[in-house]
């Protein structure tokens, strides 16, 4: 068990022959991900690192069952590629691309909802069911199997926290990056619901940041959860109105403040770490380890 993806997930890589796509496809293969094809219009028939390249998603699906797609497509073309995968019937899209126009993101997510597809991202590091399947760009060595589910808005901070967990002897069931943009496919609540149902997951780490009201909405769900939750929120020191790197990290008009999120999470019963390296100790404490 794990959530969203597992050892049986068949994956295609859209944009497999580009720099990023090629590098990360090799890393995913090294992690053990079952990649059944790469998509690169005009390059059908080639083979890259042992993976057959197809011109279109539809072509790959004539040869294989495809469960998920990982998109390394330049921002201006990302909407078209995502539409193609959804229309072809792929049910999980992991969109790594950053800087996709907001309006395109709304359309991608609208189509995904119509067709019953799950979108992770855009602007995500991806999703890893540790030891089973990695779709995305995180460094392989830090992700080992275990009982803790991790859901986060930003990438490197998650590596930091997952790295700390792994060093502390705590593996992960699934690690999900929601994506840093204002409009993304999944919310904290969507993922928490899946973790609550997942038998392998015994506790959850939530890595949030200032801006928006996702953490506040998550708090309402955490109240009802049977599994312990440990949270860390980045951006305590960020001044209002300044964009900190990606659209997620901005405080607008007093909403989405650090204090508001921490209070909501604590009231819901979550433990909140002041600094990232405190997360493993809090998890051990909450799990009774």
């Amino acid at each position, binding site marked *: 068990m794990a959530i969203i993806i597992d050892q049986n997930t068949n994956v295609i890589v859209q944009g497999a022959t580009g720099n990023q796509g090629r590098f990360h496809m090799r890393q995913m293969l090294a992690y053990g991900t079952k990649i059944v094809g790469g998509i690169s219009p005009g390059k059908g028939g080639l083979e890259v690192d042992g993976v057959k390249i197809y011109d279109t998603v539809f072509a790959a699906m004539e040869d294989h069952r495809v469960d998920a797609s990982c998109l390394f497509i330049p*921002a201006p073309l990302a909407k078209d590629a995502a539409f193609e995968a959804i229309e072809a019937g792929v049910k999980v899209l992991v969109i790594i691309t950053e800087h996709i*126009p907001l309006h395109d993101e709304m*359309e991608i997510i609208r*189509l995904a909802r*119509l067709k019953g597809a799950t979108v992770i991202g855009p602007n995500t590091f991806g999703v890893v069911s540790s030891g089973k399947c990695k779709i995305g*760009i995180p*460094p392989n060595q830090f992700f080992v199997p275990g009982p803790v589910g991790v859901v986060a808005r930003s990438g490197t901070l998650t590596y930091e926290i997952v790295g700390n967990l792994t060093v502390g002897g705590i593996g992960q069931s699934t690690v999900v990056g929601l994506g840093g943009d204002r409009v993304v496919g999944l919310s904290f609540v969507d993922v928490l619901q899946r973790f609550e149902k997942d038998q392998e997951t015994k506790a959850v780490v939530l890595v949030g940041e200032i801006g928006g009201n996702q953490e506040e909405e998550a708090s309402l769900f955490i109240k009802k959860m049977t599994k312990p939750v440990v949270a860390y929120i980045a951006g305590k020191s960020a001044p209002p109105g300044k964009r900190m790197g990606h659209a*997620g990290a901005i405080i607008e008009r007093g909403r989405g403040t650090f204090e508001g999120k921490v209070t909501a999470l604590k009231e819901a019963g979550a433990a909140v770490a002041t*600094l990232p390296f405190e997360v493993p100790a809090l998890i051990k404490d909450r799990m009774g380890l």
Partner: protein
Amino acid sequence: MKLYEYMGKNLLSSYGISVPRGKMAATPGDASSAASEIGSEVVIKSQILSGKRGKGGGILFASTPEEAGVAAARILGGSIQGLTVESVLVEEKINIEREFYLAVTVDGSAKKPVIIASSSGGMDIEEVPDEEIIKYHIDVFLGLQPYAAREITRRLGLTGPLAREMQNMLPLLYRIFREKDAELVEINPLVISGDRLIAADAKVTIDDDGLFRQQGLPRVEERTEAEQKAHALGLSYVQLEGNIAVMANGAGITMGTLDIIQHYGGSPSNFLDAGGGTGMEATAKALEILLSTNPKVILINIFGGITRCDDVANALIKVKNEREIPVPVVIRLVGTNEEIGVKILQENGFEAYKMMHEAAAKAVELAGQQ
């Protein structure tokens, strides 16, 4: 990218939404002749990228061209909320019977466009009670259909010719939002003047990621010089007030680094997200940007996934060999090629930390000693 009020109004007007007659002026003389051209009482509005201009003395009224010149002289060159006023918009003063609020933006949690409307306009929408605000979500595949415009108009309580005005205006507003890759198109106040609806203000924000296909729109630069330099290198940089310069790789970890500095009583001078996979050249240039802001200490926090630790170490040595680094540099370096990177640093007299909080504590201590 935020647009100035006059740019926003030009945009509204080009789609057929009524705005007051007005003209831009950069000198008191220009303002005076603009007022005489308009030929009525006027309002002089400072053009800065911030709200709350009225409270800051950035909006003045004048009944004659002479008064308009005097008013413009008072505003021009002055500073409102830290922003220098370089131009004013001189507009006809309109007769205000009622003020509405009207906007279209993106609701991140619904993942849809949303029309926000209220008959309590003229103030910060955050201060209007929830029950007086209409939120109408739009299906991005359907767009704003006539029935939706009729329903929003009904909820606003408008009837007669004003209702027709509103029903005509809503689809225009939504078209601007969609066609211009806008994050926000806000009219506050939307003024009832006789049987007309007039946009007395305009706040338009364009999605930076959509700018590549918005060649027709003007460009507004709001960033500092250091922020622009970083942007050109593909780095994300924000100027802050403190004295510890920070570089890390990734927005979340960079914010986390700032938080830890503050936790130990220090004060960061910037946010610099060097991103993932930044090569040696860009890293060296990022360091140059940090040095140009004259910090007391530089703190580098790298958790290398795609980013290689040896690249970061080599970048630091490159900069050190090319120029004097007059301030202490504290480095936390772990991840891909960590051993090689740490060895390079040690050979060149730098100490590398393994934990980010240890490095942050050291940086704060050094900043306190300087």
